[in-house]
C-alpha cells in the first residue's frame, strides 16, 4: 500500500507562509503565558492532591460543600475517572490529619455513598523547587546534547536550525498548555514532571523527523552549486515526505492509544506528545529545512558537511 506516490510539492515556496503561521502560534502561546500563565501541578508548586472515589454518583457541588463545611481548604474538581474527584490543597506535612478530616466529613454527611481515598500525592516546597530545577537542567542538557550531536554529525547550520525547530515544537506545546489549561475536565493540562518527560520525548522525536530530511539533503547536496540548492531541498523533502509522515503516524497511533486507554494520570502526557509529534512533523518540513536553506542562501558559503552518505 502507498499513501503518497511521488510528489512534487514546492515546499520552499510556501516557507514564508509557514514562518508566519509558526510565529503566530508561538506568539499566541507567549501572550497566553503572559496573560493567563501556566497551570502548575503540585510537582512544581508544592501541595497535596487527594483522589476520592465514590461508590455511587454524587454531584461535585455537594462534595465540595461538605468538605468546605468540614474546614478542608483547597479546590475540588471532577477527576478523569468515574465517580472520582480530585482535591488539591496546600502541603502541610501531616497527611493523616488531612485524611481523617476528609473521611470524617464524608462518612458523616454522605452516609449512603461510601467513598475511598484511592491516591494521595503530597509534595513539600523544597521538593517542588528541587523538581523545578531538575526539569530545567534536563531540558537544557537535552538541547545541548542534541545540538552537539547534530553539530558533529552534520554541521553547525543544520544543528542550530534543528534545535530551533525543537524550541519551536516545545514552545508551541507549552503555549497550548497555557491556552487550553483548565478547560477540560478529562485533562487539566497541568505542568508536572510527566509533561517534562513529554517535552524531552518531543525534543528527541522532533529531531528524528528533521534528521531524516537532513540526511537526504546531505546525500544529494554534495558537490552541487548553490544555485541548485532550492531544487535539491525541495526534491529531498518530497522524497522523504512519505517516511516522515508514516514514522510520525505509527507513533501518533500509539500515543493516541495511551490517551484513550492509559487513564487520567497519563492523559496530559499523551496530549503533549501527540501535539508535539504533529507540530514536530510540520516543523521538520516547513521550519527546519527551509531555515537551513535561507541560512545557506544568505551566507553564500558553500556547505561543508560531515558524515558520509554512501552512494
Amino acid at each position: 500500500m502507498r499513501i503518497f506516490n511521488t510528489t512534487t510539492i514546492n515546499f520552499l515556496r510556501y516557507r514564508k507562509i509557514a514562518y508566519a503561521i509558526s510565529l503566530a502560534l508561538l506568539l499566541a502561546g507567549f501572550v497566553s503565558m503572559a496573560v493567563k500563565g501556566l497551570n502548575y501541578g503540585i510537582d512544581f508548586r508544592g501541595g497535596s492532591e487527594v483522589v476520592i472515589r465514590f461508590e455511587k454518583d454524587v454531584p461535585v457541588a455537594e462534595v465540595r460543600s461538605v468538605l468546605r463545611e468540614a474546614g478542608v481548604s483547597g479546590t475540588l474538581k471532577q477527576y478523569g475517572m468515574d465517580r472520582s474527584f480530585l482535591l488539591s490543597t496546600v502541603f502541610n506535612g501531616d497527611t493523616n490529619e488531612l485524611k481523617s478530616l476528609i473521611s470524617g466529613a464524608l462518612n458523616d454527611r454522605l452516609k449512603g455513598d461510601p467513598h475511598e481515598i484511592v491516591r494521595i500525592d503530597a509534595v513539600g516546597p523544597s521538593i517542588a523547587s528541587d523538581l523545578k530545577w531538575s526539569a530545567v537542567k534536563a531540558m537544557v542538557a537535552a538541547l545541548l546534547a542534541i545540538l552537539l550531536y547534530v553539530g558533529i554529525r552534520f554541521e553547525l547550520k543544520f544543528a542550530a536550525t534543528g534545535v530551533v525547530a525543537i524550541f519551536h515544537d516545545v514552545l508551541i506545546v507549552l503555549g497550548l498548555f497555557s491556552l487550553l489549561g483548565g478547560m477540560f475536565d478529562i485533562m487539566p493540562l497541568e505542568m508536572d514532571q510527566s509533561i517534562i518527560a513529554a517535552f524531552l520525548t518531543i525534543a528527541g522525536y522532533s529531531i528524528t523527523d528533521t534528521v531524516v530530511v537532513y540526511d537526504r539533503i546531505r546525500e544529494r547536496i554534495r558537490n552541487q552549486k548553490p544555485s541548485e540548492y532550492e531544487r535539491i531541498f525541495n526534491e529531498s523533502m518530497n522524497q522523504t515526505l512519505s517516511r516522515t509522515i508514516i514514522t510520525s503516524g505509527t507513533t501518533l497511533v500509539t500515543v493516541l492509544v495511551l490517551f484513550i486507554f492509559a487513564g487520567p494520570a497519563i492523559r496530559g502526557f499523551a496530549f503533549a506528545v501527540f501535539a508535539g509529534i504533529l507540530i514536530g512533523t510540520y516543523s521538520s518540513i516547513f521550519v527546519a529545512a527551509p531555515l537551513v536553506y535561507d541560512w545557506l542562501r544568505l551566507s553564500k558559503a558553500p556547505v561543508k558537511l560531515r558524515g558520509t552518505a554512501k552512494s
Partner: protein
Amino acid sequence: MKNKRFNLLLIAAVTLVALWSLWPTWRDYSLSRQLSSFSTQQDSLNFALSHRSEIEDARQKSLKLGLDLKGGMHLVMEVDQVDLFSEKAWNRDARFDSLMAGVAKEARSSDADVVDLLSAAFRKDNVKLSRYFYDIRNSDSEIQGKLRKEAADALVRAREIIRNRIDQYGVAEPMITTQGNRKIIIELPGVSDENRMRNLLKGTAKLEFRLLREPELQVRTLERINSAMVSGAVAAAPSSASSKAPLYELVSVSPSGSAVIDSRSRDVVSALLRQPAVRDLLPPDSELLLSARAEAARDGVSYYDLYLVKKTAELTGGVITEAKATFGSEGMQPEVLMSMNSEGTSKWARITGANIGKRVAIVLDGAVYSAPVVQSKIPNGNSVINGIQSLEEAKDLEIVLKAGALPAPVRIIEERTVGPSLGADYIRAGLQSMIWGFTAVVIFMIVYYRKAGMAADTALVLNVLIVLSVLAGFNASLSLPGIAGIVLTMGMAVDANVLIYERIREEIAEGRSITSAITQGYDKAFSSILDSHVTTLAAAFLLYTYGIGPIQGFAVTLMIGTAASLFTAIVVTREIFQFLLSRNKMTVKSFG
C-alpha cells in the same frame, strides 16, 4: 557467511535469554492461577506447601510491579538538620535561636545545603560559628567540616533506624535509600494501613525520664503567665483577650495543683506555650508539657494534663534494651514494659532511690505518657509506659523503642500513595494500552508493507520481550509510566523499519533487484536511524538522570526499548529477509 551465522546465533541467544529471564514471571502467574483455582482452602494450602520453594523462587525472580500498580507508598523524608545542629550547639541564646529560625525557614523552601545556609546567615550577622559550635579555637571551615560529618552520620543512622522500624513492622520488600545529604527515600509496596505507617515513621522516639516540678511551683508559674497575659506582655488568644483571667479560661487548676486543659483548646494552648515570652516566665530548667492522650472526664469532655517538668532528663531512651507491648495487671489497659542495660539500671536505681514520693514523667517525643509517683527504689532496671490508648499503639511504641531514637526529627516532605483498588485500575489501563497499541501498529505494518511488515512485527514482539526481560532480570519494576514508555517505544521501534522499507521501495523503483535493493536500503537508511536513536536515547537518559520515581520508570523502558530496537528492527528483520531470499520467497512485491 561467517557474519551471517554470527547474527543468527546472536538472535537465538537474545531470544533465549529473554525467555529465560521471563520464565519465572510466567511460572509465578500460572502458579497463582492454579492456587486460586482450587475449590477448598485445604487443597490450595496443600498445593502451596508442596510447591513452596517453587512458588517462592518464581515470585522472587518474576517481573515486579511498581508501587503505582501494586498499591503502596513512596515517601521522601528529610532529616531536620537545623534541629540536629541546634542540639549540638552550646550556650544557645536568643540571637542563636533567631538565626537558626531563619535558616530553618530557608531550608524548608529550597534544597540548598543547610551548612552553607547556616554559615551564610552567621557571616551576615558577623557571628563566628565557633561561638556556638565545638571549640572556640576552631575556624569556620573546620566547624563546617565537622557539622557536615555530623549531618552525614545522622543521615546514615536515621536510615538504619527507619529500616529497623519498617522491618519490625513487617513490610515485604521495602526499599530504603538515601539521597543527597538529608533525604531518605522509602518505598513500601502493598502497605494496607498507611496511617499507622506514617505515625510509625515520623516520630523521633526520643524517650526521656524527667522529674516533675513541685505542684506549688507549677501553680505559681501558671499565675505568672496569667498576669503576663492580662498585662499584655504575652499575646493572649483572641477569644479571651478581654477576660480578667485569660489563662484560666483555657487551663483549669485543681486544688491539689494539677492542671488540665480542654482537648478542644489544645492547639491554642500549644501555640501559647511555644511563645518565647511564655518560656521566659518559666522557672530555670523547666518546661510545660501536655500529656500524650486526652482523658475523658465524667462530663463527657476530654482533658489533657499539663505538667511542669525539668528540662534536663534524668535518663534517656538510649539505655533501653528491650521493649514489650502487653496488657497491664489491672484491667485491659495496654502498656509497654521496658528493661535497661546495666548502666541504665544503676542510674535508674539511683534516681528512683533519691526521689521516693516524687513524680517522674515518662516523656516520648515531647509528650507525657504517664507521670507515676516513685513508690520505692527500682533496682532491676524495669520501667513501664502506660497511658496508651490501644494495643496497636503499644505495639508501635514497642517497635520504635526497640529500633532506637532518631538522631534528629524527620519529616515527610513528599508522599505518593496509591490505594490497591486504583492500582488494579492502572494495571487494567496499562494492559489495554499495550494490547491496543500493539494491535494497531502490527495491523498497520502488515497492511502497509505486507510480508516485510510481518518481519517488522516479529521484530517488535522480540523488542517488547527484551524490554520486559531486562526489567525482570535487573529486578527493576514495571510502573504505569513504564508501560507508557513501552507503548511509545512500539510506535518508535517500527520507525526504523519504515525508514528502511521506504528506502528499499525507492531502490526497487529505480530498478534494482530485490537482493541489491535490500542491501542498499539497510545501508543507506542506517545513518538516519542511528541519529534518531541516539537523540531519543540522550533525551531518555537525561530524563532518567534528572527525573525522580515515576518518570524514571518511563525513561528506563524508553531507553531499553530504543536501544533494543536498533538490534531488532535492523538485525532481526534483515536476517528474516536473508532467510526468505535464500528460499526465493521474497519478490519486489514483498514490500507492499
